[in-house]
């Protein structure tokens, strides 16, 4: 196994308009990378192109030194877990998992050993003679994972693998996926629109918008340091405010007040998370507002506050409960602000 | 997804097989000689003149009358049954459903003969010769009945019967509910069922074999007899007229209902 490189990949459905253009992505050997984005951003297209269901019209798909962009799907030897799991309804769990090995003309006893081995790992050995229709969602998911991994693929592709599961199962399954991925030490691409799902298990995350990668970084960096307005909005910076830079490190808000933050030339907006806004104290740059809506989120309260900058979302810990109609003062601490140029 | 070339060529051949014969019929109907052949010896429209001759026209009239009456009556019987089968799901309705679908199991020609025996019985015992046209209509009603239930039943299966309670709670009587809510909501299904039934009746031959009489011979039977006897191109000309009628109806269905509601 070696690292995966997508080099200037081009994909087009009709030969005219490119859905993906000059698409570049590098994944280190044995790492799990997520491609995250809203629906229609091109993440599924990326997966289909890498898998080979869509013929790329230009560029390379390199694993090591070998270009896979012209190799037919059935010769690529990539393991794919589909969104609907796509288990064969006519086959038992065992038959599903052994299908890929049978096609490879592997001797029967070896197939049996490999399949039983992997079914053991995903804890499905007792259900090996069941048909998919008699399995729960999580069990189907594990069969799909086992079926994709048993062929010792060069690359594992996961297409929204958790979107059909309920919340509790999703958390269980994502650590199972991570465990398997590490056990097999396999380079993996995970496609998802769920931020929490991908941040929790990815080594790196590529955030896509409109056919392009907006930011490719570790989850921690993306979370705290988004590089574009789109990414900031997507990863939960609920407050995005227009600013103009008046001197290095000083920005003017639309209500005329100035605030300080890290210096970025051509800054257009600042972003700040609800929990990073300080509530209460007076300061030079505080903003006053009225609480319109209070929602209880378990760990904390969240308020929608009406200010002269528009609506701002703030959260406080349970200890400080404010009421609708209260007038409060908001402060934007320097280190909670993220300054964005594009 | 790309499709393999071999498959595409195969499917083209299949559609050629499905459609080329119809094309041959069209061409053969223009022959100047009085034989059915392809390619034709010369061009002539004379067979269309005989296509509109009295025997075909009266056959058309019979088939049309039978088709329309049988369609309407099988709807009158079928709609309530379809409603009942969808609303009440019990052992009883499942059993009774089999009774209603039983005509499907009986070969048309067998049904035709058994009804002919009934006609003979009434003629003998009650000294009444029922008009053949009436018997034809009764036979066609029986053939259409299961189709009607199936198509209308499809619409009722999707109908939410709590709506009936809702209407009642708002003060509607049973009659109001049927006229204002139930029937309007299954209108598309009634139209498909009518068209499907009429075409089925209009084309059906076996069910009429033992039941037609002088002056009440349906069109397809006249055509079949002509084909058996000599088969000049006038039958082909009638076929072409019917083909275009069918194209017209198909086009209307496609425009108004969409084909997906059809034939399933």
């Amino acid at each position, binding site marked *: 196994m070696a690292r995966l490189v997508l080099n200037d990949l081009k994909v087009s459905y009709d030969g005219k308009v490119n859905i993906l253009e000059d698409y570049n992505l590098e994944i280190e050997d044995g790492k799990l990378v997520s491609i995250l984005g809203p629906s229609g951003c091109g993440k599924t297209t990326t997966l289909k192109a890498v898998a080979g269901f869509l013929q790329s019209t230009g560029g390379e798909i390199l694993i090591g030194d070998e270009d896979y962009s012209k190799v037919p*799907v059935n010769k690529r030897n990539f393991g794919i877990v589909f969104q609907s799991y796509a288990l064969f309804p*006519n086959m038992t769990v065992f038959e599903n998992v052994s299908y890929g090995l049978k096609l490879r003309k592997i001797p029967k006893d070896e197939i049996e050993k490999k399949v039983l081995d992997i079914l053991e790992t995903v804890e499905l050995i007792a259900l090996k003679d069941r048909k998919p229709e008699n399995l729960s969602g999580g069990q189907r998911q594990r069969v799909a994972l086992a079926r994709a991994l048993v062929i010792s693929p060069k690359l594992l592709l996961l297409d929204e693998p958790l979107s059909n599961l309920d919340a509790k199962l999703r958390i269980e399954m994502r650590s199972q996926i991570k465990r398997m991925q590490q056990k097999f030490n396999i380079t993996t691409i995970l496609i998802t629109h769920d931020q929490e799902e991908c941040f929790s298990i990815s080594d790196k995350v590529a955030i896509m918008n409109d056919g392009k990668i907006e930011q490719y970084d570790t989850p921690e960096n993306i979370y705290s340091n988004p590089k574009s307005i789109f990414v900031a909005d997507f990863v939960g910076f609920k407050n995005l405010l227009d600013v103009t830079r008046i001197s290095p490190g000083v920005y003017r808000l639309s209500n005329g007040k100035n605030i300080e933050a890290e210096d970025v030339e051509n800054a257009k907006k600042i972003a700040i998370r609800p929990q990073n806004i300080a509530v209460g104290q007076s300061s030079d740059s505080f903003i006053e507002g009225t609480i319109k809506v209070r929602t209880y989120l378990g760990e904390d309260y969240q308020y929608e506050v009406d200010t002269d900058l528009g609506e701002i979302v703030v959260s406080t810990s349970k200890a400080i409960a404010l009421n609708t109609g209260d007038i409060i003062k908001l402060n934007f601490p320097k280190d909670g602000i993220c300054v964005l140029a594009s | *997804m790309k499709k393999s070339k071999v498959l595409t060529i195969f499917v083209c051949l299949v559609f050629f097989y499905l459609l080329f014969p119809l094309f041959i019929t069209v061409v053969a109907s223009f022959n100047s000689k009085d034989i059915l052949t392809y390619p034709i010896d010369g061009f002539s429209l004379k067979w269309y003149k005989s296509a509109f001759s009295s025997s075909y026209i009266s056959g058309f009239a019979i088939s049309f009358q039978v088709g329309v009456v049988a369609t309407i009556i099988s709807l009158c*019987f079928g709609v309530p049954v379809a409603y009942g089968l969808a609303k009440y799901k019990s052992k009883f309705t499942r059993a*009774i459903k089999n*009774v209603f679908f039983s005509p499907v199991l009986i070969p*048309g020609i067998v049904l035709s003969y058994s009804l002919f025996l009934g006609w003979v019985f009434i003629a003998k015992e009650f000294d009444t010769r029922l008009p053949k046209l009436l018997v034809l209509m009764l036979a066609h009603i029986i053939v259409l009945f299961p189709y009607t239930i199936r198509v209308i039943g499809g619409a009722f299966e999707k109908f939410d019967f709590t709506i009936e309670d809702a209407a009642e709670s708002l003060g509607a009587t049973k009659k109001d509910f049927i006229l204002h809510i139930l029937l309007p909501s299954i209108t598309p299904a009634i139209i498909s069922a009518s068209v499907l039934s009429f*075409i089925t009746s209009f084309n059906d031959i076996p069910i009429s*074999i033992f039941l037609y009489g002088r002056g009440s011979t349906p069109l*397809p039977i006249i055509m079949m007899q002509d084909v058996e006897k000599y088969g000049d191109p006038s039958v082909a000309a009638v076929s072409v007229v019917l083909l275009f009628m069918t194209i017209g109806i198909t086009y209307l269905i496609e425009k108004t209902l969409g084909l997906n509601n059809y034939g399933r």
Partner: protein
Amino acid sequence: MNKEKLVIFLPSLCLIVVLVFIPLLMLAQKSLSVDGTISFANYLELFGDSTFKKALKNTFSISFFVVFATLLIGLPTAYFISRTQGRLKNVLLLLTLFPLLTNAVVRSISWMIILGYDGILSRLMSDLGLIDEPISLMYSKLAVIIGSTYIFLPLMIVSLIGVMDNISQEIEDASISLGASRLQTFFNVIIPNSMAGIIVGVVLVFTATLTAYTTPNILGGTRTVVLATLVQQYGTTLGRWELVSSISIFLFALTVVVITLINKSASLVGGRNEEK
């Protein structure tokens, strides 16, 4: 049983009883009576009748061939249509269904032209050097098989499309991603998961061919007799009415038995639908 159910079901129940059950009983009674006494003589005569035996053999062999041919042609065609999208799919569906809406005479005429003496097929064969003299295939078993396959193919295709539409593209993709070719995927995944539609199609086509009257009458005539045409020929043409009733009952019973057998064996083999 409440009043509403009575109003809904009773009229139609009467309709079926009067127009189906009673006539069928009269038919059965007639087939079992000779000169006013109950007897199996008609059936005994029938089973000894050589024309009947021939017709029975023809009916079965034709039905088997037609089911086989429609399945062979229908499977790839239905697959192709179910994997087509948008307008083209509608057009293909329309072209498939259209022949079903025209009557069997219209559809059989062209086969007289194709299969008749010195017809299209005969000329094609002599052009290819297969035959020296013009031939006629009319009234042969082959003619009935070709014509019936043509007539009933749309039934098969429509039954198959119904299930194939429900096989998701992802399942096919999964098979291919695991290393299968398209052909392997068709046999390993598409066909096994189309079993429900295959069974419906087989039942429909088999019973339709078994009981078909018009096409065998036009293309088979008196030379290739099948059970349905025998009913008519023994009745209106030859006046052997005593046999008509027994053939009719036999044909009816055969249809019921065949449908039951296919469905039973299907649920034995498939088993899946039964378990739920």
